[in-house]
């Protein structure tokens, strides 16, 4: 297999020629209404937003910082503008069940008018009804009524008193009632004197007293009925007066709101309630109690007077209360009170008839919020209950407002992992969120995309009120977008990163006093971000340059190779070389992964070592037995190793250890390998190459060094300018390898050797030397085994 040619400067970077951009600055470009390259999400949103059936809520999946929120909100705002405005809702007092405020639905914008009408009515009640009670007519009638009633009430008593007086018997008032006693000339006869009366006289008096007592008893016992009768008549009079007073205003309101039967019913209930409480309005000095008048007001829960189209609400703190609303309390002298005017709507109320955007992670981290959200979506109505009540922590009497029907399209924003976890673990999730809108991480980079991407940048620039970007600055940004996507044929769709770079570039342009953002400002923004995140990287490189961490960048060594690893710290990542070493001796066909043994290796790395172990066995041992006891280690690695990107390097170093053939230390190797020796793509190639380049430069002049990487990774290369410069000057080479033999030949300078028909490798080839050394291991093992068997046999016969 021929050794591949090193990559040229053009192959390691996909530049953006400014000729492809047909503008001078971004001011020449129009805004982009739809983001480019997000057709899948757009179609999903179009479908989800238009779909009327239940459960077709949306989950917008995408990485954090992809601009999901802005995108979804912009899309929904445009979509919702074409939809009808949803109705207003208000809570009013429930005169039958005071703890269950009634909900009334009103056409959009009429809620405010209804509230105002009720306020005006309450105000009118406050003044008009007391005025009615103070009117001459009322006072005269009540006076007549009271006179008549008093007369009826007392007449009986007076009659008895008269009768008693006629019979010379006094009716005397006691603190608790009445008593009768014989009298003479207005004075009660002395009891001593009474004793002298004849029996006849006494009997006459006593029988009369007894008769009077009975009459009095009957009369008094009728008083409650008389009083009840009076109360009823007074109440009837009050009702009549209030009816007359209310007739006008309530009649007007009934006519005005005749198109809403619920409102008409409520107004009738108000009239009945006012009539029932007519007496309370009689206090002309203090007026009716505020609490009573408050019952005739409306609590406008949802006001869509200023809403255009369907509402699009973003709930930034989606906890239970904010979603479903809450019942507030007022503290009064250490006690908490509430009424229907303290019911507060939640974002579900406001979004009813429209769209509610929620961050999935936030709603999941708020107690009961996710369950409450699902409950509303499943039941189609909002029931306002406090969190304490839901948890059963309180059982005090509170309000239970009438549930309000809700029709809301919920749009959850979250990362993919959340979506898949919810799909797996929450049985309701897929019933409720049937529309999956998956955000593209990257966009295709082709000739058509340049204009769209430039317009997208121009839109961002204008939205952020930044200086316009010059064409070359946009070109640089597009190149960097490819680097961020780690692909020459892709551009990153990460909204946040691009916006941050733009903002920073604008800042640097501002410091320079420039009117436009130039390529140098974009580059400065990129470099500054790089520099700010470079402390750990520089400390790590320093360790290598000082020889604390041993990395050789020249010469040849047996059983030692430079692997490449990538470290991710926060938002930044960097690559660096790691020395991989191997040992080999006869054994039982084992390759010991020291990292795994030390529990520093991850499962993928272990799998890669097993693969290379089986590769060696199948390639070199053929049908014979592989006698090998080998070990692999990442030297001076203390933080754990994961991934299979070092399997090419590990294979080469292991084969070097077996055959005792040195490997060139001027190369670093990355790439994974399958059991047939084919080299497969890995991630982070740009960072790995640049990391090794930096180490080589710090070790001295960059000369003859290079990196072996999978050929399939070539299109992922977007290397730094200084690396490209070294490649152009052929001081640094990058070899795309597709087979392990190519890597072997580049690292050893020897022919790898293809097996002949009999399975043998050519003479003096690298593979032949590996096979021969393994054969010697096998012989050595066999001798060892024979000797061991002989010892065992002799020992056994001896014992026999």
């Amino acid at each position, binding site marked *: 297999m021929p050794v591949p040619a090193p990559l040229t400067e053009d192959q390691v970077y996909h530049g953006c020629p400014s000729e492809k951009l047909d503008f001078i600055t971004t001011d020449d470009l129009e805004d982009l209404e739809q983001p480019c390259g997000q057709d899948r999400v757009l179609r999903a949103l179009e479908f989800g937003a238009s779909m009327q059936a239940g459960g077709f809520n949306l989950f917008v999946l995408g990485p954090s910082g992809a601009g999901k929120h802005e995108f979804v909100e912009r899309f929904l705002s445009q979509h919702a503008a074409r939809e009808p405005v949803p109705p207003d809702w208000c809570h009013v007092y429930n005169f039958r069940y005071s703890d269950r405020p009634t909900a009334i639905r009103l056409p959009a914008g009429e809620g405010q008018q209804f509230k105002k009408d009720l306020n005006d009515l309450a105000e009118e009640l406050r003044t008009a009804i007391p005025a009615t009670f103070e009117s001459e007519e009322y006072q005269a009638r009540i006076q007549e009524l009271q006179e008549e009633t008093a007369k009826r009430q007392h007449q009986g008593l007076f009659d008895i008193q008269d009768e008693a007086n006629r019979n010379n018997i006094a009716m005397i008032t006691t603190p608790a009632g009445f008593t009768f006693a014989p009298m003479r000339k207005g004075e009660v006869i002395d*009891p001593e004197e009474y004793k002298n009366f004849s029996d006849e006289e006494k009997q006459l008096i006593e029988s009369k007293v007894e008769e009077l007592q009975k009459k009095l008893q009957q009369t*008094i016992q009728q008083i409650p009925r008389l009083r009840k009768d009076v109360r009823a008549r007074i109440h009837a009079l009050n009702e009549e007066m209030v009816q007359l007073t209310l007739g006008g205003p309530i009649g007007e309101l009934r006519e005005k709101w005749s198109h809403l039967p619920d409102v008409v019913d409520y107004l009738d209930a108000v009239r009945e309630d006012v009539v029932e409480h007519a007496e309370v309005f009689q206090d002309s*000095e203090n007026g009716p109690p505020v609490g009573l008048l408050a019952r005739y007001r409306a609590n406008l829960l949802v006001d869509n007077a200023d809403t255009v189209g369907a509402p699009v609400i973003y709930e930034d703190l989606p906890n239970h209360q904010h979603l479903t609303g809450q019942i507030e309390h007022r503290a009064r002298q250490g006690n908490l009170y509430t009424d229907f005017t303290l019911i507060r709507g939640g974002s579900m109320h406001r979004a009813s008839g429209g769209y509610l955007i929620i961050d999935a992670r936030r709603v999941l981290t708020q107690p009961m919020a996710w369950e409450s959200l699902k409950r509303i979506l499943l039941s189609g109505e909002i029931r306002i209950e406090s969190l304490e009540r839901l948890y059963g922590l309180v059982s005090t009497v509170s309000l239970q407002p009438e549930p309000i029907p809700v029709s809301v399209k919920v749009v959850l924003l979250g990362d993919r992992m959340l979506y898949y976890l919810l799909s797996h673990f929450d049985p309701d999730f897929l019933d409720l969120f049937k529309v999956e809108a998956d955000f593209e991480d990257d966009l295709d980079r082709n000739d058509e995309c340049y204009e769209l991407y430039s317009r997208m940048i121009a839109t961002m620039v204008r939205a952020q009120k930044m200086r316009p970007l010059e064409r070359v600055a946009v070109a640089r940004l597009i190149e960097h977008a490819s680097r961020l996507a780690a692909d020459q044929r892709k551009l990153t769709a990460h909204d946040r990163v691009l916006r941050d770079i733009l903002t920073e570039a604008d800042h640097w342009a501002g410091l320079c006093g420039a009117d436009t953002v130039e390529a140098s400002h974009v580059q400065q923004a990129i470099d500054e971000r790089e520099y700010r995140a470079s402390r750990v990287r520089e400390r790590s490189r320093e360790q290598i340059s000082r020889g604390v961490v041993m990395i050789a960048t020249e010469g040849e060594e047996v059983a030692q190779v430079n692997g490449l690893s990538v470290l991710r710290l926060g938002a930044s990542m960097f690559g660096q070389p790691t020395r991989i070493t191997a040992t080999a001796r006869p054994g039982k066909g084992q390759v010991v992964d020291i990292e795994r043994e030390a529990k520093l290796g991850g499962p993928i790395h272990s799998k890669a070592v097993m693969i290379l172990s089986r590769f060696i066995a199948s390639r070199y041992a053929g049908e014979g037995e592989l006698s090998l006891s080998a070990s692999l280690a990442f030297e001076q690695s203390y933080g754990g190793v994961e991934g299979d990107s070092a399997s090419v390097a590990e294979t080469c170093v292991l084969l070097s250890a077996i055959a005792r053939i040195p490997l060139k230390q001027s190369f670093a190797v990355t790439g994974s390998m399958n059991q047939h020796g084919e080299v497969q793509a890995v991630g982070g190639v740009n960072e790995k190459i640049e990391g090794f380049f930096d180490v080589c430069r710090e070790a001295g002049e960059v000369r003859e060094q290079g990196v072996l990487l999978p050929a399939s990774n070539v299109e992922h290369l977007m290397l730094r300018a200084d690396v490209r410069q070294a490649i152009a000057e052929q001081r640094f080479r990058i070899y795309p390898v597709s087979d392990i033999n190519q890597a072997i030949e580049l690292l050893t300078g020897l022919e790898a050797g293809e097996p002949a028909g009999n399975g043998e490798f050519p003479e003096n080839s690298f593979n032949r030397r590996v096979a021969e050394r393994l054969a010697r291991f096998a012989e050595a093992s066999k001798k060892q085994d024979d000797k061991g068997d002989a010892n065992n046999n002799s020992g056994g016969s001896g014992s026999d």
Partner: protein
Amino acid sequence: MRIITAGAVAVTDTPANHSGPGAPTGRVLVLLDGSRMSYAALDAAADIAAKTGADVLGVFVEELNLLRSAGFGFAREVGSESGVSRPFGPAELEQRMQRLAEQVRCALAGAAARYGGRHALSITRGSVVDEVLALAGPNDLLVLGRAGWSSAPGVRLGSTAKGLLRRSPGRMLLWCDRQVSSQGRVVVFLNDHDDANRRATMAATDVVRHSHQPVTLLLGVGADIPPDHLELIKRDLGVSDSDFRVRTLPSTDPAAVAQVLRQERAAQLVLSRDCTLLREPGAEHLLAALNLPVTITP
């Protein structure tokens, strides 16, 4: 210590000293029988005493007729609310009277404590009207509820009030059972009887001196009071033009009078017992119909 004796029973007293220098010439006598109305009258009396600095003399009379009525073997008491008839004996009545007297003493002490003035309580046995007349002097203000215990079954002008209405030597204030507004007007009824008018005006002057309420002069039918006299009355009352109004009564019918008083938002009515209103046959009906404090001058 001052001891007042009357009728047949000795009487208690409290630290009041009426002979001290600078003491007001008149006292406030308040009739107490333990009924709700009498306690309302006590509060009114205490307020007046607080404003004028007068001493308060509570009068509690154990009605002789009542005591005697309990002495008959057949005597029974019919409950004013329940109508239930129960035995009524002297022992129970004595105990009840003692209890009431104690309650009255506490109420008087409590009311006096609020305004800090001097007070005394007279407990006598006999006829209420006679005992009160024996205690009251021409300079004393007599304060009593419109009805005592008899107000419970609905009587609106009790026998004591009726009895004292014509015979009180000094001013008499009949208190009512409703909350009295402090913002209403003091209505003074005048007619063509100059002396009566003068006494009523003086009483009204005493009322508004402390309360600063506006005043309405209510002129009886046919009353012909020259404007300069009205001006003098206004000056005596010490009220401004805006707080002074004169109205003429269309008739002396109790309903008409009550209507005018409502229109005037009357908080108190002041009139002389010699005036035409009280000379009419329906005077008692009028007083019964007016549920507001009424000051009656001799």
